[in-house]
């Protein structure tokens, strides 16, 4: 009995202690150890959707046009909802392949409002606004300088048999606001082989993102050939011209692309490999696709996918960044590290060559420098024994840049006349003149060849100053065709290829310090950088960007808005 008593007392005491502890834990903590934070789940986009409505009974002409605009902003294949706003006989003739992208639009009626005259059978509504861009029938996006192209269109409306106002003369294009464009259309890359068939060069087109048959459209775009950004002369196309593309079928991660046509059956193994490579590169970014299988006339072709070997940067990955210091010593560094500049081997590493600008070949064996006077271009192997060789003599040389074949591209600005001569120095030392019909009369400040060896970016100054993109047509007499004009407000100072579809550009706005901008190849996306006073930039795909400021500091971009100072110098460049 006594034992039970003590046991009971002990039990009660334990219970009391437990209760006290439990109540103590119930309060909000006043202190806690400091732990690293991690972001929670992202809640999704802040996209604004339009639920377009069909024409309402009794809508005025202005309202009909408003509704028509809203309907065009919600993508549905064939835009059946937008069709409802048109007169029945106008529906068939409405062209809806090209798109005009506008920033603002106002609607007004040049004639007195229809409400004043309820019996009116005709009305017109004028659309006035500002073009922001154009997407043509091929999907090519053309940015338009703000304010440079006003948009005006007068829509005529008539009463349909039911007495409702309907549009009688729809324009030959879709009208989508820039706000709604990103929601409904997206850029897609299509790939075409360079003339040698060694590299796949990316092209960019805009297609509706919600289109169920997107893969078919992309395959068709490949057959149709490149936009004039890179072609047709700059690149080839493994697809014969009259190839027919059937509906693609996606099942279990494999997309089957049916091709047919007289010419495509005769293609040989090499061409088929290129076709498969083009399709693979183009279609893999689409969701749900792990493999691409091609059938020609119903028969699957069994060809390995070596698209990865055809990448422009194959073999040129992870390069260091090169800095030309004030003492003419060229140092290289791992761009992902904060520090660790090391002199390059050879003459340049010892600072024996006075230079004002620097370029390094993609294979990192050779460097090209322009001397301080800007009249000579010296090519130096990056080896201990390498000696500089003068390869060009000119007046005022800008550039240079290397292409994937080891050619040095440079621009020599002649004082006689505003024109600039573009020269290509081949590895054997031969200097080839490159014609640029589009640059007649323009003054070039920079020229950069992309790693794929086809695309080229040229910065011009003076009236009509812009960043111009185009392609190189190789041959005995190479030609540069500049087909894309990316307008900027202000002076474009420098440009560098930052990725497949992206350039890093330094722009000096009319009122303000120069800044780097990230620009997409067709000018559709422009992101302003956060550092000011930059004079030049160096960029490489998948590597951090570097910028040179007017106080000669070299900055490295560590995050979207953050740039760190790394060192000082007078030039910074990546290979290329």
């Amino acid at each position, binding site marked *: 009995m006594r034992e039970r008593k003590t046991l009971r007392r002990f039990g009660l005491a334990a219970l009391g202690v437990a209760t006290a502890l439990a109540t103590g834990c119930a309060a909000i903590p006043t202190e806690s150890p400091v732990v690293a934070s991690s972001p929670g789940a992202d809640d999704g986009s802040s996209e604004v959707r339009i639920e377009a409505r069909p024409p309402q009974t009794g809508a005025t002409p202005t309202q009909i046009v*408003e509704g028509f605009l*809203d309907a065009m902003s919600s993508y549905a294949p064939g835009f059946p909802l937008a069709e409802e706003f048109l007169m029945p006989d106008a529906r068939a003739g409405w062209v809806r392949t090209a798109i005009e992208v506008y920033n603002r639009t106002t609607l*007004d009626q040049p004639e007195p*409002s229809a409400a*004043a005259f309820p019996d009116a059978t005709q009305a017109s509504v004028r659309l006035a606004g500002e073009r922001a861009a154009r997407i043509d029938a091929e999907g090519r996006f053309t940015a338009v300088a703000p304010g440079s192209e006003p948009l005006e269109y007068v829509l005529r409306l008539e009463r349909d048999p039911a007495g409702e106002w309907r549009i009688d003369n729809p324009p030959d294009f879709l009208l989508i*606001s820039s706000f709604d464009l990103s929601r409904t259309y997206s850029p897609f890359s299509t790939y075409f082989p360079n003339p040698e068939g060694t590299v796949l060069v990316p092209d960019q087109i805009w297609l509706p993102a919600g289109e169920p048959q997107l893969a078919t459209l992309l395959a068709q775009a490949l057959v149709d050939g490149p936009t004039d950004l890179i072609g047709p002369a700059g690149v080839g196309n493994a697809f014969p011209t009259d190839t027919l593309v059937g509906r693609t079928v996606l099942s279990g991660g494999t997309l089957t692309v049916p091709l047919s046509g007289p010419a495509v059956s005769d293609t040989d193994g090499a061409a088929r490999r290129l076709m498969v490579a083009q399709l693979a590169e183009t279609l893999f970014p689409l969701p749900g696709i792990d493999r691409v299988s091609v059938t020609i006339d119903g028969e699957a072709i069994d060809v390995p996918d070596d698209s990865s070997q055809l990448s422009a940067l194959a073999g040129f990955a992870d390069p260091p960044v090169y800095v030309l210091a004030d003492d003419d010593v060229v140092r290289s560094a791992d761009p992902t590290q904060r520090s660790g500049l090391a002199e390059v081997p050879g003459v340049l590493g010892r600072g024996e060559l006075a230079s004002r600008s620097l370029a390094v070949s993609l294979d990192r064996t050779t460097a090209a420098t322009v001397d301080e006077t800007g009249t000579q271009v010296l090519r130096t192997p990056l080896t201990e024994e390498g000696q500089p060789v003068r390869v060009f003599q000119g007046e005022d040389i800008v550039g240079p840049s290397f292409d994937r074949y080891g050619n040095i591209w440079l621009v020599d600005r002649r004082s006689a006349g505003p024109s600039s001569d573009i020269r290509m120095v081949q590895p054997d030392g031969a200097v080839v003149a490159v014609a640029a019909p589009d640059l007649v009369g323009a003054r070039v400040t920079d020229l950069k060849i992309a790693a794929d060896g086809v695309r080229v970016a040229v910065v011009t100054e003076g009236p009509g100053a812009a960043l111009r993109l185009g392609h190189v047509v190789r041959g005995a007499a190479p030609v540069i065709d500049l087909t894309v004009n990316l307008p900027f407000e202000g002076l474009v100072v420098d440009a560098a290829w930052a990725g497949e579809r992206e350039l890093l550009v330094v722009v000096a706005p009319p009122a303000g310090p120069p800044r780097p901008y990230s620009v997409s190849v067709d000018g559709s996306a422009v992101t302003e950088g956060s550092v000011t006073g930059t004079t030049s930039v160096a960029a490489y795909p998948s590597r951090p960007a570097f910028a040179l400021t007017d106080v000669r500091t070299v900055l490295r971009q560590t995050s979207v808005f953050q740039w760190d100072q790394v060192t000082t110098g007078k030039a910074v460049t990546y290979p290329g």
Partner: protein
Amino acid sequence: MTESGAASTAATPRPGPALRSPAARVLGLLARPFATVLRGWRRSLQIRVVTATMVLSAIVVVLVGALLQSQIVEGVLTTKESSAVAEAYRGFEEAQRALDEETLPGSDAGESAGVGLVFGEIVSQLSTRSGGGERFEIVVLGSKGPGESITQFSPRATGVVRVDSVPDQLIELVAASDDPWQVYHPITYAGVPTTTELGFMIGTTLRSGDDGVYELYYLFPLDQEEATLALVQRTLFTASALLLVLIGVIAWFVVRQTVTPVRLAARIAERLAAGGLQERMHVRGEDDLARLATSFNKMATNLERQIKQLEDLSRMQQRFVSDVSHELRTPLTTVRMAADVLHEARTQLNPSAARSAELLQKELDRFESLLGELLEISRFDAGVAVLEPEEVDCRELARQATTSLGALAERAGIELVLDLPAGPCVAEVDPRRIDRILRNLVANAIEHGERRPVQVTVGADDRTVAFTVRDHGVGLRPGEAASVFNRFWRADPARTRTTGGTGLGLAIALEDTHLHGGWLQAWGRPGLGSQFRLTLPRELGGAVESSTLPMVPTPVVGPSARRPAAPAVAGGHRPSSTTDELATGSRRA
């Protein structure tokens, strides 16, 4: 009297298992544990108290839990509502301001700005504040076109929220007034399949510069609140369940404190009732249980004292009787001798003196036999009666008894009928005593026989032997069959004792029967006579469980019919209960 188990030899047959319906079978299966539970419930105070406690606690806990839950719901929703309303009001203000800036006041010419674009930007701007803890969706509807009654404005919405989530009732009220309205309503999201979340909506009208009227709705999903409340509910539930269980356990222990002493008391009382008069309860403390124990002990002491007194008294009485009987013997012998002399010489006396001498002799005989019986009785009472068993044939005993009373029967004009079985019935009995019993029974039958025949029957089976003495005389009245074995009892006090009975005959016969371990039973019906049955075990020390001869004679008819001989059946007949009076002399403990 033993009671055999499920009386399957009873009258109505039961259906076998194959014939029972499934429902009946299930009920049967449940019945056994249910019966056990019910029995436990009835017998255990503890279980009843604990169950009552738990039931009441459960009710209380449920009520408290419901109250808590409703308070928490209210609190959570109030918090969410106030923060949602604040956010929405901020948004409304901002939206209206942006709208005013962007849309130019229109003329009647009907110029309209791209209000769709404007709203797109406004909504995009507002929705950047959505995220994390304060998520919301925005829906913009047009309620009135500029200057017109209908609207062609296409609704704008963020994310994948469906525009038809906004209930019509809210739309009506919002459109009809300038003030914001709010409601709780589920939010639907487009998708395959569509998903729905509980939500809170608040909307207001916005006016554009050109008299267009639009409605802006903020939709706040309440999924987090739902999750919080589900958590609260789960916690409350588990806590309540745990609490109930603990209350049950606590009640168990607490009740044990009360019930254990009560059980102890019950046990001691049982022992006392069973005869342990020395049993007393432990008195601990001063509470109610102690008072109970004290009173109990007092009562037990009193009882013990009383019983002892009675026992002493009884013993004293017995001893007195014994002593007196003994003392009376001596003078009686002397008186007897003198009386014998007088009786011998009665012829020499005058007639009245001779008569007196005869009377004297007769009464002295009676006196002597009475004394003998008293002594006998007192021997029984003192417990010193001794059995002298012999193997005797019971038929002989019956014959002897009837023969010895033959003269008496003849004098009374009663025919004595003897019904004996054919074979011998040997039993191990004290012949003297049995003979005494039989003679007593037969004498009684002759006495009360009313000149009708008296039957003596002997029956036997392998375990017992039975004698019945049947008379067709006055019989016994209701209630008399029990008291017929009492000492000095007389059926009819007015009746003279012609046979010279003392009133102790049956009592002594009963004691003799009990010495053998047998039964002595009486049956009677007024006017139809009576029957006395003596059943003895054939082996000394054996128990009598049944008797071969029936207690109630069949047929219960007049003397003319002869009762058929009862068959010797193994197991015998149980004495069947009838409406007739039946008595068994009870065995004293």
